[in-house]
């Protein structure tokens, strides 16, 4: 037993994909920017460290022994070299072979212990006068008889130019990463939209389907949707089987009922009315009428089953609508028809052709005419066939009361008639509509005017000449 439940709305596939992709892109962008910042800092440090090391080497080079004492002539060029980082402060210290400060800032320390083993190009971080600095050190080995040993030059520089360069490089990289992320996001969104189109298409195809069409869905879908389409088709197949089974059952049942019913009719006819008294005759008449109705209903059920069966299985072929209608007209008007009713059949000379199943169409027209005779026609019944450029019409007009517009929709439903007390089976219009739909046509009504009420069966005209 299915119960309607409050369905919690899962977010759309698009939203789910969009969210996950933006998270991934966001994390990617953050990682890239971090990496860019790291590389930018490394690059900036490398660039300016070279200046620092160069200056330290120049200063170490300027050390010389004069008159037995170590003297230093700091080259201006070393400071000009450092001045290329034009906003940075410069600190330096020259240490002689005894570890005494020769010149410069006495309290400037090298982070590494003073010995000659250190690689000159390695530059260290440090803090001096409360400012973060980069510190380079150059060693000068002196082998003068008066002064021998190792002298050191320590040069430190603040980080402003490095930071500025790092900032600039990082900013540029960040802009690139952001632009790329944005492009990737937009691209991904477009791709998702494109990828989800088949789902939309499949949904539309299933939604637009005729409710009676239980053939497999044949929309072209990507491989990923095959299981889904397969499930739908499997389900439809099973449904189709059940519907077939049901229809066969109805047909079988009707067929089985028909034989005893014919016997029953014959028996009633044999019974005769003349031996009965007035009340008995009344009952007899009613039994006869009901039996007739039952027979007609059984026939209609069979006819309905047949029409549906043929719609599924019979190949449509070009047929003359006039011929079919005429045959139906003859079959529908019984010999016992009320002679007071004027009955006519009108057909054009050009004999419109339609693509159809003659048997089903005849059945449909018979049912419409029968319906008109039974419930409509008072004194006049006209059957007309006519055609326009693209369509052919079979119109059945009578001078009866007709069906009010609000009842039109209901009239074509099975067993739904307002006149069941008059013995209507209510299957006539249903059969006619079934047939019309199977032929790509419609069954419609034209409101009552001074001439009468008209039922119109519209069918598409066959294109080209019939074979």
């Amino acid at each position: 037993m299915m119960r309607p439940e409050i369905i919690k709305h899962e977010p759309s596939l698009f939203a789910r994909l969009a969210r996950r992709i933006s998270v991934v892109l966001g994390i990617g962008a953050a990682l890239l920017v971090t990496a860019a910042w790291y590389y930018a800092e490394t690059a900036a440090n490398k660039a300016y460290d070279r200046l620092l090391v160069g200056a330290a080497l120049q200063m170490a080079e300027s050390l010389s022994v004069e008159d037995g004492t170590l003297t230093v002539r700091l080259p201006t060029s070393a400071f000009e070299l450092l001045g290329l980082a034009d906003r940075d402060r410069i600190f330096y210290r020259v240490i002689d072979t005894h570890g005494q400060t020769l010149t410069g800032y006495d309290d400037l320390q090298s982070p590494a212990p003073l010995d000659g083993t250190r690689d000159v190009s390695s530059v260290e971080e440090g803090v001096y006068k409360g400012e973060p600095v980069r510190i380079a050190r150059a060693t000068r080995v002196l082998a003068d008889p008066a002064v021998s040993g190792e002298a050191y030059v320590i040069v430190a520089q603040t980080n402003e130019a490095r930071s500025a360069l790092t900032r600039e490089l990082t900013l540029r990289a960040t802009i690139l990463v952001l632009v790329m992320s944005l492009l990737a996001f937009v691209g991904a969104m477009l791709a998702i939209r494109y990828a989800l189109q088949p789902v939309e298409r499949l949904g539309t195809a299933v939604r637009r389907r005729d409710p009676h069409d239980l053939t497999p869905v044949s929309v072209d879908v990507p491989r990923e949707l095959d299981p889904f389409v397969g499930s739908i088709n499997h389900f439809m197949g099973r449904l189709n089987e059940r519907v077939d089974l049901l229809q066969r059952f109805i047909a079988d049942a009707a067929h089985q009922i028909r034989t005893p019913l014919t016997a029953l009719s014959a028996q009633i006819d044999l019974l005769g009315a003349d031996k009965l008294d007035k009340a008995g005759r009344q009952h007899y008449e009613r039994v006869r009428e009901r039996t007739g109705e039952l027979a007609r209903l059984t026939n209609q059920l069979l006819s309905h089953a047949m029409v549906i069966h043929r719609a599924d299985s019979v190949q449509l072929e070009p047929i003359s609508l006039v011929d079919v209608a005429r045959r139906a007209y003859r079959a529908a008007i019984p010999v016992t028809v009320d002679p007071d009713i004027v009955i006519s059949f009108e057909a054009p000379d050009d004999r419109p052709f339609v693509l159809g199943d003659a048997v089903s169409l005849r059945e449909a027209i018979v049912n419409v005419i029968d319906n008109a005779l039974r419930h409509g026609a008072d004194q006049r019944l006209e059957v007309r066939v006519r055609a326009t450029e693209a369509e052919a019409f079979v119109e059945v007009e009578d001078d009866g009361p007709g069906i009010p517009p609000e009842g039109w929709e209901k009239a074509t439903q099975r067993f739904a008639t307002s006149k069941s007390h008059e013995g209507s089976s209510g299957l006539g219009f249903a059969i006619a509509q079934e047939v019309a739909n199977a032929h790509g046509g419609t069954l419609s009504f034209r409101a009552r005017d001074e001439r009468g009420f008209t039922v119109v069966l519209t069918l598409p005209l066959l294109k080209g000449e019939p074979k």
Partner: protein
Amino acid sequence: MIRSMLAVMIALLISSPAAAAEDNTTQFPAPQTESGRLTIYSTTDLAAMKPLIEDFQKSSPDVAIDYIEYLTNELNALAAEACRKEEPLGDLLLSSSVDQLLKLANDGCAEAHTSPETARVAEWANWRDEVFGFTYEPAVFVYNTRLVPPAEVPRTHVELADLLRERLDYYRGRVGTYDIRLSGIGYLLAFNDARQTTTVFGRLLESMARASAVARCCTGEILEEVAKGNLYIGYNMLGSYAYQAALRHPELRVVVPRDYTLVLSRGALIPKGAARADLGARFLDYLLSERGQSIARTNAFYFSETGSLPPDVDGPQNLKESGIAQPIRIGPALLAVQDRAQRQRFIEDWAQSLIELNSPAWTRE
């Protein structure tokens, strides 16, 4: 000019009893209600700064100014000491020894200042927005027209060296220059002379030593001596002082050397943590502004980077266009100038060359 000097003297006389605890302090009371007191420590002669200060007070009448004068080395020592103790010295330092200001800034003793006015400063005259050059002063020769015959007037450094060699007896003890032991600016100029051309400077130094050149602490003293006729030629004088002296003493003449001319830009620096750094910045902006520069050109420092030379100056038409101007760049290279080993050795060499040779008795104090 004499009248204006008198006015200065009178102003000094009037203001000094009221204020100065030190006799090198000059007070400029606020023309209107005082809302702040700006203290300027400077190495610039009051006479040069006075027109600027007075004009500044026209646009900022609520600011009183204490103007305190020192020699460059004294000021540097005071400022460095103050910075070490974190007791900022005044609200604005003005010094012609930009190398000392640069060292102070490098040691973290300066406050950065940026404004539309500082943006106008030439790139070579601004370091870290902390040290600004606000003048354009060529280092010039000065001579006494009565004592130096026109044919002998030196117009390049080489000519000066040759003149001293050729007319050794006439010029012995008659050439004056800075005593770089006492004057920071003298050291800065001498150091840069040495950097320009080692040979010419060596020759010049040798010639001056032979001619028993006189070394004095300050431009003013030498100019005075040249004006009096005790000295005939002054070497490496600051153009602004020299020109002002020439205005006062018609017999003085200024020569802008034609081979190269060192150009010094007087430096300004706002000490870190200055009590009225805002006023310091305001005065600095004034000095750098169009108006301040124009007052400086007409009344205080006479030379400018863009204009032509003042009248009656012997030299090229336009310093900048002639290409001989060598501005002393305010940048880290000045740290090499300020290096104490460098300084010590340079001064020793200089003193050995110039002083220890015999100089006339009257020059010894």
